[in-house]
């Protein structure tokens, strides 16, 4: 039995089931409110939801009971008072390596840390006070910190990605940060601007291979990349069989550092699945070759958009389960590492995020 924690434009949904036999919606919470991201802390079972009321601003809520139990509002989730910006949105929540530690990334390019399981948060000052921050450029979705990659077993090493301020790496628990953008080639910039490290590096999603943490994969705004030095530099792997080098969602098989899964979209000016077909592309050789995996997915007149946080997995190896949701409110799943797929839900609100357990 697997559980899907799904954030949508109109609330949080929990589903339980198996890809083969179907999923049931067990809960809806935060009815009517945008749930930008929701997950469990796998160490405690605590549910956390990033909710951005259009009226009252972004908050994180948590509950240790069932999702229909009382939700508590987390404290401390704000920018320093008296500044010239306000927190716009929380894009992602990720468990840290140290006990009780969680990270949350948000707009404007901000990282929060919690050391009590998500009840209270504080801003990561090292990243917030980067001298180059005034020059950071937002992407289309804002200045969003959307990817947080911990280093298994080492709480001091962390990589985060900000659209469009690029990759940021720390080896001292977030006290100091350095950029990790070498090798990225933003085709949307004039050649003369490439030397400007503040010119936009529009990273869309990053994942780290847990068994070989120096190996990372990146979906860029026009480009797919691999890093073999923990995010310091990047090699283009976006050619070959991929129908497009544009997209947002990216997953890996934890058992295989050479694996990655993408759901490409046509291009930045046409953010739908290419050719009216929904296909997941898989590499098992570090990006040298890619193969389409679409058995069971819509194959005709299917112009779906899958957002960056709406693709996730549970398990690994031959038992790897993959799940994704679309802005058209559909959920799809595979229980055989992407070889075959089934539709798990339809007519949900637009899916913003999906995390599987």
């Amino acid at each position, binding site marked *: 039995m697997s559980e899907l924690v799904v954030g949508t434009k109109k609330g949080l949904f929990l589903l339980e089931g198996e890809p083969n036999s179907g999923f049931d919606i067990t809960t809806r919470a935060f009815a009517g409110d945008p749930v930008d991201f929701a997950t469990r802390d796998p160490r405690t079972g605590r549910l956390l939801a990033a909710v951005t009321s*259009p*009226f*009252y*601003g972004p*908050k994180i809520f948590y509950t240790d009971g069932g999702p229909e139990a009382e939700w508590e*509002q987390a404290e401390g*989730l*704000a*920018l*320093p*008072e*008296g*500044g*010239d*910006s*306000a*927190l716009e949105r929380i894009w992602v929540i990720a468990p840290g390596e140290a006990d009780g530690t969680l990270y949350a990334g948000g707009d404007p390019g901000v990282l929060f840390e919690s050391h009590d399981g998500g009840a209270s948060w504080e801003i990561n000052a090292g990243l917030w006070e980067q001298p180059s921050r005034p020059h950071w450029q937002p992407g289309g979705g804002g200045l969003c910190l959307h990817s947080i990659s911990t280093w298994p077993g080492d709480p001091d090493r962390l990589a985060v990605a900000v659209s469009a301020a690029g990759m940021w790496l720390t080896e001292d628990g977030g006290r100091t940060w350095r950029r990790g953008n070498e090798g990225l080639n933003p085709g949307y910039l004039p050649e003369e601007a490439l030397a400007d490290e503040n010119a936009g590096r529009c990273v869309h999603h990053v994942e780290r291979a847990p068994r070989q943490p120096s190996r990372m994969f990146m979906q860029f705004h026009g480009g797919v990349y691999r890093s073999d030095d923990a995010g310091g530099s990047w090699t283009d792997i976006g050619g070959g069989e991929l129908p497009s080098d544009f997209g947002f969602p990216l997953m890996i098989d934890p058992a295989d550092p050479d694996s990655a899964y993408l759901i490409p979209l046509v291009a930045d000016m046409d953010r739908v699945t290419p050719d009216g077909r929904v296909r997941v592309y898989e590499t098992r050789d570090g990006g040298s070759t890619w193969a389409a995996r679409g058995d069971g997915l819509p194959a005709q007149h299917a112009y779906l958009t899958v957002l960056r946080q709406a693709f996730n997995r549970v398990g690994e190896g031959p038992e790897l389960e993959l799940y994704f949701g679309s802005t058209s409110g559909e959920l799809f799943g595979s229980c055989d590492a992407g070889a075959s797929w089934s539709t798990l839900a339809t007519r949900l609100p637009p899916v913003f995020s999906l995390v599987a357990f």
Partner: protein
Amino acid sequence: MAIVSVRGPLRKLAGARAEHELEGVTVLELLRALEGRHPDLGGWVLDERGLIRRHINVYVNGERGEEATPVRDGDRVEVLPAITGG
């Protein structure tokens, strides 16, 4: 003293009371005073900059107000979610 009224989730966060008698000579001072009395309201009406959130409307005696709008004794200040959405 002015009367600040809130509704919906703000009322719940404000001790389940709709009306609050508060000291202040501007809308911002009243809202700060309300937050001071009910800390759970922090961040719900005013953001980190001290600005009223974009989709919250404040009316003073039925006239649209903003942070610096003056308030006198006996004035009624209503805090309402704006008509918005999509």
